[in-house]
């Protein structure tokens, strides 16, 4: 039964995103490799190319980029999937933030808090880098995608223009190189 399969997918997606929410230190960029691994490699709900296009639309649209999770949910199970994906992705971490807020202020000068902050920083850097690498390599390594990604990263580091201009430039380059 298709409807039944859809309901199973919806439950799996929701539970998985709730777990993902709790390890999403650094936000969307950090969990992108894991999300891609699950919905593309493990479950096969979405192709690597589709995942990249979901990411592209999510990046270009205004709003928090966690909404990429909603697009994944939409692709898997329509509007219900989109709504559940958003709340699953944000709910558990929101509850955690709610509770930690007081502790955070209380332990402002504690050496544990400082050590934890220093420990997390390099991991977040590595996970964001992994997200970029995986998105630029949706299938077999493609020099054209790497070129666009490298040019964008370089441009961003050397200038202070709004990132939307880089996305626009990437689109134009894409039309010429990939069209």
């Amino acid at each position, binding site marked *: 039964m298709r409807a039944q399969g859809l309901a199973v997918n919806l439950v799996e997606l929701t539970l998985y995103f709730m777990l993902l929410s709790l390890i999403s230190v650094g936000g969307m960029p950090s969990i992108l490799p894991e999300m891609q691994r699950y919905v593309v490699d493990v479950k096969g709900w979405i192709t690597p190319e589709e995942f990249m296009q979901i990411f592209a*639309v999510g990046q270009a649209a205004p709003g928090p980029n966690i909404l990429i999770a909603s697009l994944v949910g939409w692709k898997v199970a329509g509007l219900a999937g989109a709504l559940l994906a958003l709340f699953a992705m944000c709910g558990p971490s929101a509850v955690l933030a709610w509770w930690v807020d007081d502790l955070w202020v209380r332990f402002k000068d504690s050496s544990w808090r400082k050590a934890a902050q220093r420990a997390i920083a390099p991991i977040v850097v590595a996970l964001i880098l992994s997200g970029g690498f995986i998105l630029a390599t949706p299938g077999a390594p493609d020099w054209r995608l790497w070129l666009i*990604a490298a040019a964008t990263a370089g441009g961003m580091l050397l200038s202070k223009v709004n990132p939307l201009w880089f996305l626009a430039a990437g689109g134009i380059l894409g039309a010429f190189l990939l069209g």
Partner: protein
Amino acid sequence: MSTDVAPPKSLRELFLGFLSIGARSFGGVMPWAHRVMVEERRWLTEADFAETIGLCQFLPGPNIGNASIVLGKRWFGVAGSLVAFLGLFALPFIWVLVLFALYADFAATNPTLRAVVTGVGAAGAGLFIGTAVKLGRVIARRPAALALIAACFLAAGVGRISLFVVLPLSLVVAFACARRGWL
């Protein structure tokens, strides 16, 4: 210029403030969150804003989503958290779905559009890489930090090992390094 700040007076004001952050956040939410809450509505000081964002970057979850929860809670309790969160996401949620539906419609018959969007995706990947370099170049001067970054990247990015394995392991190692003053 006066420097006095005051929290939002009502849930309605809180909702509208976060709605206007979400509505205008082309190219990144954080700059708009700063503009609306610190500059326009003067709900909190520059220092409070930085401190709150610091907490939200440390916690799992979307930074700005966490900020809406934490600030809403400080001002109005649970109701504040819910109202701020819903205000923030209401419009971007609709827009991203509409944009994607439009895209899916046109992309089926238009290979050029697919090429453009793939190019945008590659540029978005480049923004991630640029962000990682920006954040990393300060901390990577320490050999232990550089080794951690490389190991995590090889495991999660290249090796595609699950984050549920990589994150706990690397947190334990990183915390031990941080306590020894290596990071």
